[in-house]
């Protein structure tokens, strides 16, 4: 038993920290503070992505023979942690989930045209999984891709297609067989967003995170746009779920926030003799958050170690997802209480503190309890795989 980063990992963390200090220019920071661009897509963001591509910081999880760095899960966790601490909206799903799948299972065209450009930081994908009637029960999706002599004809609608407004392609799950069980008839496609049959309408959310409904009307793609075998798409969707879920609950950003609020509370005078940090209830709120972060860090490290040692432990991955997502909500609340009413001010307002990060985060916090595999399903998994209880009905 050893619960700490090794020398090499600590060095990587240091290296990445320095790298991002240089990457995040004041111009990029300004762009990211703009609601329209805080998820990426702006000119400074694109520039930074190309720089990262050129510097070899894209494709960390990819196998070496596919042009990647083949970092271990722990090193990938450190990367995610460091990026998220900076607030840079690194497109993990494109570069670390879709990318390596295309590089491994894509056609020759996809490998050369798409995978290479993802590594160069040139391409962004939107993820086309959910539909109006298929969310948690994703395998029930109805968007269809009909095989024709020279390709596939795609028709359907997707929901919550984030980044679609500035992405080049959609990583689309479509039904190619209606006769078999739900999850056995799904295939994965690369769909260009400049096709005339593609359209979208924005969905504005509580957290001011823009997402989209996307529409696919008689879009024809050649066979080269199919990734993996026909009807084998489900395994591609599920293959990296554990890694993706873990990235969602990385302990880096909340620890960064905790530190920032701590510094703020120390600076903030409440009278001639005392700072905010001197109040006993403020100290207690900090302690609640801190003891929660420590548990989250350990859960994430353990889950990463489990992946690194090649074990499969479904219950542990779900523990991380449920605990992390619900803890974030609690932590934001406790930290907002410390700052008080001023935490209500938005980032374009005078007097706002910490770029109004908390004002935005409390509004986006609920996304994680239902997104990325809703917590009810995660608890079902924990009861079954962790406690060996019968399947719930």
């Amino acid at each position, binding site marked *: *038993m*050893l*619960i*700490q*980063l*090794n020398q090499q*990992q600590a060095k990587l963390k240091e290296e990445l920290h320095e790298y991002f200090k240089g990457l995040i220019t004041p111009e990029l920071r300004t762009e990211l503070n703009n609601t329209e661009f805080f998820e990426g897509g702006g000119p400074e963001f694109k520039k930074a992505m190309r720089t990262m591509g050129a510097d070899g910081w894209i494709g960390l999880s990819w196998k070496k023979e596919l042009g990647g760095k083949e970092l271990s899960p*722990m090193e990938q966790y450190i990367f995610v942690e460091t990026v998220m601490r900076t607030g840079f909206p690194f497109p993990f799903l494109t570069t670390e989930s879709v990318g390596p799948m295309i590089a491994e299972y894509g056609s020759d065209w996809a490998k050369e045209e798409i995978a290479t450009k993802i590594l160069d930081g040139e391409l962004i994908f939107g993820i086309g999984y959910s539909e109006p009637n298929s969310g948690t029960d994703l395998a029930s999706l109805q968007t269809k891709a009909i095989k024709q002599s020279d390709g596939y004809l795609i028709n359907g609608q997707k929901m919550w297609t984030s980044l679609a407004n500035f992405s080049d392609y959609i990583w689309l799950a479509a039904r190619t067989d209606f006769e078999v069980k739900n999850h056995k008839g799904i295939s994965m496609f690369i769909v260009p967003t400049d096709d005339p049959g593609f359209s979208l309408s924005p969905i504005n959310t509580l957290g001011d995170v823009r997402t989209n409904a996307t529409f696919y009307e008689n879009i024809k793609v050649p066979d080269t746009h199919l990734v993996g075998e026909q009807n084998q798409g489900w395994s591609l969707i599920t293959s990296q779920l554990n890694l993706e879920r873990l990235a969602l609950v990385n302990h880096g950003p909340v620890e960064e926030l905790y530190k920032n609020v*701590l*510094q703020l*509370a*120390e600076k903030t005078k409440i009278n001639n003799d005392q700072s905010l*940090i001197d109040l*006993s209830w*403020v*100290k*207690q*709120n*900090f*302690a*609640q958050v*801190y*003891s929660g972060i*420590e*548990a989250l860090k*350990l*859960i994430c*490290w*353990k889950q*990463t*170690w*489990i992946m*690194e*040692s090649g074990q499969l432990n479904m*219950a*542990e991955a779900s*523990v991380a997802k*449920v*605990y992390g997502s619900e803890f974030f909500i609690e932590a934001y609340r406790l930290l907002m209480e410390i700052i008080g009413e001023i935490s209500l001010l938005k980032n374009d307002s005078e007097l706002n503190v910490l770029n109004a990060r908390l004002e935005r985060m409390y509004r986006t916090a609920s996304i994680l309890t239902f997104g990325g595999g809703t917590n*009810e399903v*995660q*608890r*079902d998994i*924990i*009861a*079954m795989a*962790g*406690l*060996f*209880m*019968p*399947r*719930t*009905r």
Partner: protein
Amino acid sequence: MDFSELGHHNEIKDSLNKILGKECSPEKLKEFDVEFKHNETLISLLAINGYLGLGIHEQYGGSGEDLYELGILFECLGFHAAPLSLTGCLIDVAQTIQKFSQADNHKSILSSIIKGDIYTSAILEPFNQDTENPITRAEINGDKLIINGTKYLSELASIAKKILVSVTSNEGVLLVLVDSSQVKLTQLTSTANSPVFKVEINDVTIDRSSIIHAQGKGLEALRYLIQINMVMRSYLALGVTEKMTSLIATYTSERKQFGRVIGTFQAVSHRAADCFIELECLRLVNQQACINLNTNLDCENDALIAKIWAGNTCHKISYSAQHLHGGAGVDKDYVLWRYCLLAKECELINGSASQNIEKLGINITSNQ
């Protein structure tokens, strides 16, 4: 990073579970629902098999100074609700003497403990939650100390060869050994029926040589004692809550209502899943605290976090377990009730969650 249990850790756990499983069957536990809850046969068995030497250096006959092994022992004692109260003996006395004493006559206590002799501590004081500042006083008079004060919740004091007492003096905090014959003992009846005593110390005179640590090291030694006690009590709590969670899983997978096992109701399985999550958090913060305490004598924040999680987890899992068992949970013919009582002890002794949250808050904001 490595979260794997070493081979010999697993062996210790398996073999302890075998011994304790046999000695702590529901029928045998019933025999110890008596005034003095203490299984002497079990103590001898643990001694013969070398388990009282876990965490103690080889030179005294122990198995090495790995606190992780001591954690396993307390986890197992909790899991089986063993009728043994050994935190005073194996943690407070043995570990503090091992780390802070330089005198041979004190160190010989370690060999004696390994053989199964009982020693204990008297640290806690009624209405004084500030354990680092004992109200009990020692007047130093040349080579003699005269001690006055009242301690309580001292485990097994009536059969202890010596009692380790924390006192305040004009040389600061001291940890001293007194004979149980020198003090007035009154057994207290506590919630889990643990054999605990009030210790009244009235003008007890001892030699300076009874101080177990070097001059000026008293506070450091007491802080270490409090921290390792918090961590090991958290391991006890881990065992107790692990057992309760496994009882939940078993019971709700068998009990049928409305024609189906109740574990198939999501409301039931999700409450059980929440226990699993709490348990995992407790296990991890315990492991971190234990590992850090192995190499560092002062890890107060890690110890506090472990005890905070222990307090909250004991509370939540105990009531979840009672609720999900329905009437069976509170029936004294079933096993759960003992764990619920132990959980309350683990939760409150040596710092409650709220008290420790306050301490942790002070610590993490003081270096700013």
